[in-house]
Every structure is written in structure tokens, then in C-alpha cells.
């Protein structure tokens, strides 16, 4: 009984997600224009594409976004990686001591 209820809930969530995505978003492939409420404007990706090769000197625009325009986020991600490795080593160090 509980499993049938959970299965029904998952199917309802799936139908709701597919319906929302097919009707309430801008059509597929409309990159520079984005919608905020009622206005349509050019998104910031267009400005970054125009200025990045001269400002950062990198041919790869994604790299210049990752380190040049959003360097703090990548620093935080390196910290998360370090924390995860510390956590895994800590769990397995207590493994051998249990015996």
C-alpha cells in the first residue's frame, strides 16, 4: 500500500515536471534573450562572449569564465574537494581500529 502511494507520487511529479518544462520556458535555442517577468533582455553570456578573448587572453571562453569571472566559486569547489577527501580518509581510518 505504501509502495503504491509512493509510485503514484513519483508519476505525478514526473508528469508535473514534463508539463512545466514544455510550456513555461522560452523555446529551445533562444540563447541571448531571456525573460524576467514581462521584459525580454540580453543575457550576460553575450557580453562575456564578446569581451573575454581580449580581456583574459584565453581562447577557451569557458576557462576564462571559470577562473577569470568566477574565480571565487572555483576556489570554493577546490575546498569542497579537499573536505571530501579528508572525510573519506577519516572514515576509513576508524575502519581498521574496530577489530
Amino acid at each position, binding site marked *: 500500500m505504501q509502495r503504491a502511494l509512493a509510485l503514484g507520487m513519483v508519476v505525478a511529479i514526473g508528469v508535473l515536471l514534463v508539463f512545466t518544462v514544455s510550456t513555461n520556458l522560452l523555446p529551445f535555442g533562444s540563447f541571448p534573450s531571456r525573460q524576467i517577468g514581462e521584459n525580454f533582455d540580453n543575457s550576460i553570456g553575450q557580453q562575456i562572449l564578446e569581451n573575454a578573448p581580449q580581456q583574459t587572453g584565453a581562447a577557451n571562453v569557458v576557462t576564462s569564465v571559470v577562473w577569470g569571472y568566477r574565480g571565487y566559486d572555483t576556489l570554493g569547489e577546490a575546498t569542497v574537494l579537499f573536505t571530501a577527501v579528508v572525510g573519506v580518509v577519516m572514515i576509513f581510518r576508524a575502519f*581498521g581500529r574496530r577489530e
Partner: protein
Amino acid sequence: MAGMTVIVRTIARLLFPFTFLFGAYIVLHGHLTPGGGFPGGVIIAASVVMLLLAYGIERAQKRMGLLQAEVLESIGGVAIVVLGLFGLLLGAFFLQNVFPLGDLGQLFSAGNLPLLYLGVGIKVTAGIILIFYAMLFAFREEKE
């Protein structure tokens, strides 16, 4: 943990330099081609883990033990922060570019971007090897 048969050991020893070179190429050309430090570091770690699995833990521990892997990962992390502090000392902001820019499309271009990716590549490599070591050492102590 014992190693594997002669065929596996020969192929692993033959494939290790090529896989290591491929990973290093992806790390170093992060500002020209897709990739960068994160997938390149995983490829280098995969090549080292392949060698570890083929030859067994005892022979690999003489080359690089747990302590060396931890130190290597910390060196990678500290390198990123030091490069950021360069910008703070010489210019205006943290992590701002103070190295010369160069021409578009050459290997020595884009300021401190290749150096930052080098630090991240070392950090990711050492991190994944460290996870592998931690799991293997815990199970090896349990077996004896």
C-alpha cells in the same frame, strides 16, 4: 594485496606513459582546448591507479606512500591561494591577473590561468589517489 598475472602487468607497464602524457596534455592546454585541471587530474590518477592494481600494494608503497600523497594534495591547494595572493600584493584584487597576457592561441598566454589549472590538476590527482589508498589500507589491515 597481490598483483595480477604477467599479461596484465606487461600491458599496464606499456600503457602507463601514454596515459600519463595524455592527462598532462589535457591539464596544460586547459586554456586552449576543452578540459582543464579537473578531468586531466582524474586521467592522471586513473593511470597511476592502473599501475597500482597491476603490481600490488607492497611494491607501490615504496614509491609513494600515504604521507607523500597528502603532502602533494596540500601543495596543490596552497599553490592556488599563493597565486591569488600575488594579485593582492602587486595589483588590486585577489586572484586578479598580474602576469603578461601574450597572444591569443599560444601555449604561454592567458596570464595565470595555466598556472591555476596546474595547481588544480595536482590537487585532484593526489586527492583521488589518496581516496584509493585509504580504502585499500583499511581492508588490508582487516585481512591480516
